[in-house]
Every structure is written in C-alpha cells, then in structure tokens.
C-alpha cells in the first residue's frame, strides 16, 4: 500500500512538472582510477555489448573478480544488443538511475563525450595508455582531456577460398591490388557455371569497405576546416576511390546491393563466392556454425567451406579500425569504482584474454603479441595501417542517418553517378555535422 502511495505521489509530482533532473555537476576534475575506495555493499552497473558475452565472458568474469577482491564492490553486467543500444542508452541517461560503465562503438563515442555524457578520466591511470590505438582513443579525447578508455579493436582483412585459388592456378594471397583484381578475374572465369557465384562477395551498403577504397586513393570522408566540417567525398581522390570500389563490386559481386555486411560470412559459407572482405573473426564464422546459435558453448558444425579459407591483409587498402571504448557516465554515483573496474578490464592481463578470444587489443604495443595468434595475425597487420571516421561530434548521426549506405546503393543501382552520389552525401554530411 505504501508503495502505491509513493507511486501515486511520484506520478503526481511528474504531473506538475517538478523537474528534479539528476545532478549536472560542474567541472570537478578527472576521476581517478587509483583511489582507495571501499566499495563494500555497492554494486556497479556495467553495460557491455553482446560480443563480450558470446566471445570473452571469461575475461569479464576474471576482471570483475580481481576488482571485487580489491574494492569489495559487486558488479552487475548487462549485455546489450547492437541493434537498439543507443536508443536505450539515451533514454536511460536522461534519467537518474544510470549504468556506471558503458561500452560504445568507437564511432559512437564522440557524440556522448561532446555532450557531457561521460566523466573525465585520468589517462595515466590506465595501463598502456601511451600506446593506445589512436583509432579508438581519438573518440575519447576532447580539448586535451580523456573521457573514455579503448577496449578492443577489429580490423578487416581479405578472406579467400584456398581451394578455388588453387583451381585457378593461384598459389598465394594477392600482394598488390592488381593481383587482387586478376585473382578475381580468374575466379570469375573459372566458376562461370555457377550463376550465383561472386568472385568477390561485397554487399552494397558495406560502407566501411567502400570508404577503405576511398582512403586507398588518398581520399577523405570529411575534414575540419576551421570550425566547420566539410564533406570530402567529391574530391577527385575520393571519387577515384569510390569509382574503383564501384567498378570492382559491379564486376565481381552478385551480393544484394541493399544489404549490409552483417550476414556476409553466412552467405559466403554457401560456397558460391571466392573472396570477401571482413573482420578476422568472420573467417571462423564462415567455416563453422554453432549447432545452437543461441548457445555460445554448443558444438561447432563445419560448413561447406570448412578448412578452405585463409585470411590476408587487403593489399593497398587500409582497414577501417572498428572497436569499442568504455566510459564512466557523468551521472554515475560510483565514478571512482567504475574507473577502477575499467582499469582492471583493460589491463594487460585482460588484453591477453581478448587476444586469445581473437580480438585485437587496445594498444599498439600489444599488437605484436596479437600477431602471434595465427587467427588474428593478418588483422593485427591490417590494424597497423588503418583509418577511422571523422572525429566529429555528430558523426554518429551521419551513420544513423544511413547517408553513406544510401549513397552506395544509389550509385550501384545506377540511380546516381559517382559524382552525383558523392555530392549528395557531402551535402548531407555538411548539414548534419555542422548542425547547431
């Protein structure tokens, strides 16, 4: 009954607009991750993405254990789905009961850092912070301050069918872009009988790939000119890169031009494609599937292409560096504890665990160690020559607005020329990135 009254009172309070929004504490300096805090009786709420649950839950548990031993605080981890995590985060951050630690994709972070969603951290408190991958940490920096900690990375590589390569008389992975195209040619002729065959499987809305081609010709997506962002896809270099990608896709790929790369490994595993461009771990996904897709511990079932795949860096094309960062929310009531948990979860010991789980670590110093794991060696190489999207406050809005995806589909279907598509995308980016 008491609860009912409380509820009624709260509803009434909100009716009359008593806006008691959470403490917007002013600049209180960086949160230390080294302070001695007694966390007994406290519980941290941590939001990680689902990858941690499926691929390296052990690392999470180990870091949490060490953290709890040191501080006495408990940790509750909630695993989020990529599909809707930002909407949920926005709504939750609007309130007062917020998670203390949040993982976001590296391209998503800037927006929240710019808008005061995350607390300032003391960079030096975290291990390997002087060698953090700049593709990850770039999004954490604002005005010389640090607001998040790089967590893990992924780089994209060329994954190819060794058996088809052999049949086509190819003995090794392409070393140059010209090699890559001639390999595609040979595969195309050799498998002409299969009308579903793609020499290169490349879905049309795979903008990470398309932009890598843009970068390969020296193009840019957008750059900052004074205090304004200017879309750069119309520049001659960018257009050349786009054109190269479009020509390649039109000639060698039968993939759906309205799909993105999410399901490419599964489609590739049907055996009707010679090469694809994906995250290093996608090789494993193409070769084996979980008998029960909902159970990360169930047995692995080989697919048609099991044992027939190899990965190599994509020649002459720098890789997009994807990945995630971790931050302490500005509204967290346990900032110091939260920083300490992040510290434990991103130290060298945890990074070793990630490497074993085929993820790239957060620091260049650890990349060599990662290269010792054959499963991610090509990715570790690719990560050394990598790029990341413009570090603009509103970049996430460009991604969410499907600007690049729409442009690519329009170009591939012939609805727009490369020049027109690039011009349209530049206009969209100019208005989104500079919006007040």
């Amino acid at each position, binding site marked *: 009954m008491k609860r009912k009254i409380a509820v009624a009172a709260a509803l009434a309070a909100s009716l009359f607009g008593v806006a008691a929004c959470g403490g917007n504490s002013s600049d209180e300096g960086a949160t230390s991750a080294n302070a001695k805090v007694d966390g007994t009786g406290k519980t941290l709420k941590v939001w990680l993405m*689902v990858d941690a649950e499926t691929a390296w839950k052990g690392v999470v548990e180990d870091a949490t254990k060490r953290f709890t031993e040191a501080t006495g605080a408990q940790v509750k981890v909630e695993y989020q789905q990529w599909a809707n995590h930002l909407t949920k985060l926005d709504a939750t951050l609007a309130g007062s009961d917020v998670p203390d630690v949040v993982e976001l994709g590296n391209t998503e972070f800037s927006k929240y850092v710019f808008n005061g969603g995350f607390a300032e951290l003391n960079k030096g408190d975290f291990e390997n912070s002087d060698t953090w991958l700049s593709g990850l940490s770039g999004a954490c920096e604002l005005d010389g301050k640090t607001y998040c900690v790089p967590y893990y990375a992924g780089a994209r590589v060329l994954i190819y069918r060794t058996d088809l390569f052999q049949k086509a008389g190819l003995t090794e992975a392409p070393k140059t872009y010209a090699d890559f195209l001639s390999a595609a040619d040979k595969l195309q002729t050799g498998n002409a009988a299969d009308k579903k065959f793609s020499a290169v499987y490349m879905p049309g809305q795979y903008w990470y790939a398309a932009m890598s081609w843009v970068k390969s010709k020296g193009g840019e997506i957008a750059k900052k000119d004074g205090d304004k962002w200017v879309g750069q896809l119309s520049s001659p270099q960018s257009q050349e890169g786009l054109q190269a990608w479009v020509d390649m896709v039109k000639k060698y790929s039968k993939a759906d031009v309205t799909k993105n790369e999410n*399901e490419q490994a599964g489609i590739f595993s*049907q055996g*009707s494609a010679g090469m694809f461009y994906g995250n290093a771990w996608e090789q494993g996904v193409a070769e084996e599937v979980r*008998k*029960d*897709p909902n159970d990360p511990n169930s047995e692995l079932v080989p697919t048609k292409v099991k044992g027939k795949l190899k990965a190599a860096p994509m020649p002459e094309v720098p890789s997009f560096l994807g990945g995630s960062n971790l931050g302490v929310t500005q509204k967290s009531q346990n900032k110091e504890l939260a920083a300490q948990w992040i510290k434990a979860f991103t130290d060298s010991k945890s990074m070793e665990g990630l490497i074993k789980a085929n993820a790239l670590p957060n620091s260049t110093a650890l990349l060599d160690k990662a290269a010792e794991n054959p499963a991610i060696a090509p990715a570790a190489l690719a990560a050394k020559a990598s790029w990341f999207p413009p570090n603009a406050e509103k970049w996430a809005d460009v991604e969410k607005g499907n600007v690049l995806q729409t442009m690519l589909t329009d170009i591939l279907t012939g609805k727009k020329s490369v020049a027109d598509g690039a011009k349209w995308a530049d206009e969209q980016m100019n208005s989104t990135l500079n919006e007040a």
Partner: protein
Amino acid sequence: MARHDEGVVTVGRSRTGTFFANTTGIVFGLLMLFPVYWVLNTAFKPDNEVRSFTPTFLPQNPTLDNFKSALGEELFIPAMINGLIITAMAVAAALVVGFLAALAIARFSFYGRKAIILVVLAVQLVPFLALLIPLFLMMQRAQLTDSLIGVALVYLVLLLPYTVWTLRGFISGIPRELDEAAMIDGCSRFQVFWRIILPLTGPGLVATSIYGFIQAWNEFIIINTLNSPEKQNLMAWLLYNQTERGTAWGPLMAGAIITSLPVVIFFLLIQRNIATGLTAGAVKG
C-alpha cells in the same frame, strides 16, 4: 448472440459458379497460409537446410533443434512469462476500468459526456512512439522502469480508449427497458448493473479482450526502452535476439511460432465471439 443462418445463397447460382467460387476460396486460403507454412517449414529444418540456396518444401531431416535453441535461450522463458503477466494485467485492468467509463457513456446523459467521448476517440490517433522519452522520464521518476507493472500501465493506456468505445457499443445494445423494468421492480442501480448489464455484456468483454491481447502481446519498442533484458516480452526478444552471426532464421522462426501460440490458443478459445465482437462493438449505434 443471434447467429443467423449463414447458409449458402443458392438462388439463381449456377453449378459452374459455385465450383468457381469454391476453387477461388481454396486458392485464397492456400495463398494466405503460404507464409505461415513457410515459417513452420523453416522452423523444423536444421541450419544447413535453412540457409541453403535451394530451399526444400519439406524439411529433409526434420529437427526440433530450433525449438530447443529458442526455448533454451536463457531469456526466452522469462520473456514469455513476462509477456503473459503484462498482457494479462493490462487487459484485465483495461476491461475493469473501461467498463465503468463505458457504462457512464452508454447509460447516463450528463454534462461533459460529449467531452469524454471526444477524448476517448481522439486519443486513439496519438502516435505512441513519439511519447517515448517523456514517458520514460515519467516512469523513471515514479520508479516504474524495469518493472512489469510500469509496462502494464503504459499498455493499459494503449488499450483503454478502444476498450471503452467497444464496450460502450455492447452496453447500448442492451435494451434500456430491461434496466427500467428492473428498477420498477425495486432493484437499485447497482443491482441493475450487477444482475443485468454485466452478465449481458459478458461476450462483449471477451471480444474486446481480443484486441487488447493482440495489442499488448505485440508491442516491443516501449518495453524495450523501459526494461532491462531480463524483463522483456517475447516480441522484444524476437526482434533483438540476433546473434552476432546475423539472423539465425531457424531459431527465429521457431521462436516466432512459440510467440504466436498464445494468440492462436486465445483465438481458438473465444473464436465464437470474434466476428460478433468486432462488429457489434464498433457499429452498434
């Protein structure tokens, strides 16, 4: 519920006409069922048959693995139970609360009645998704996020206008003379309500609950925003439980079948009332 004879009107119809009608009817039914059949077909296939460039029209190696996978997913059963609880709460509350208002509109003439009718009709046009943020803030202040009751309350609002309106139709269908006769016999207003109106509206209550059930069972965006993963319903589970390997179609389709089952069962239980409920409530003037 006077069910008129729905016999075939045969007068002046030729044999070929009837044959043509029957064939069309069967073809129509089959076309309607095709997607349902395909969902079933997919759900019983092992993964290598599901994701195959040459689909087969019957599972070559039928398996229950997909159902096991869906049911075995740790949040599936909780999502199902949550969904049932939320739906039951929302529908029951909407019927009780809505019935009272319907009674007022249908049986009384009073100052402000028009305004109430207008409100009930107009709120049906409000797109609920636009209210997500204010709604979330409010629920959080009331400490009703991450709770089944909070979601049930929101769903209650979603269902209430339609419920009031439909029940109003059923109540007006009960001749006023019955009330008056009873009152002359010395029944109090409450007794009239309890002994006459309520029993006669019974079928209407059942029919109205169909709409509510479907609405509440189908919603996924509000619950997904308000609640943590442990407190989702099946629909949200269905949308967001995609593995990192893209869509796992087999388990998804198996999950879809399980998700539909409560509605199918509900329909079978009350099928007699469906048709009448839909029309009577809305149309009765």
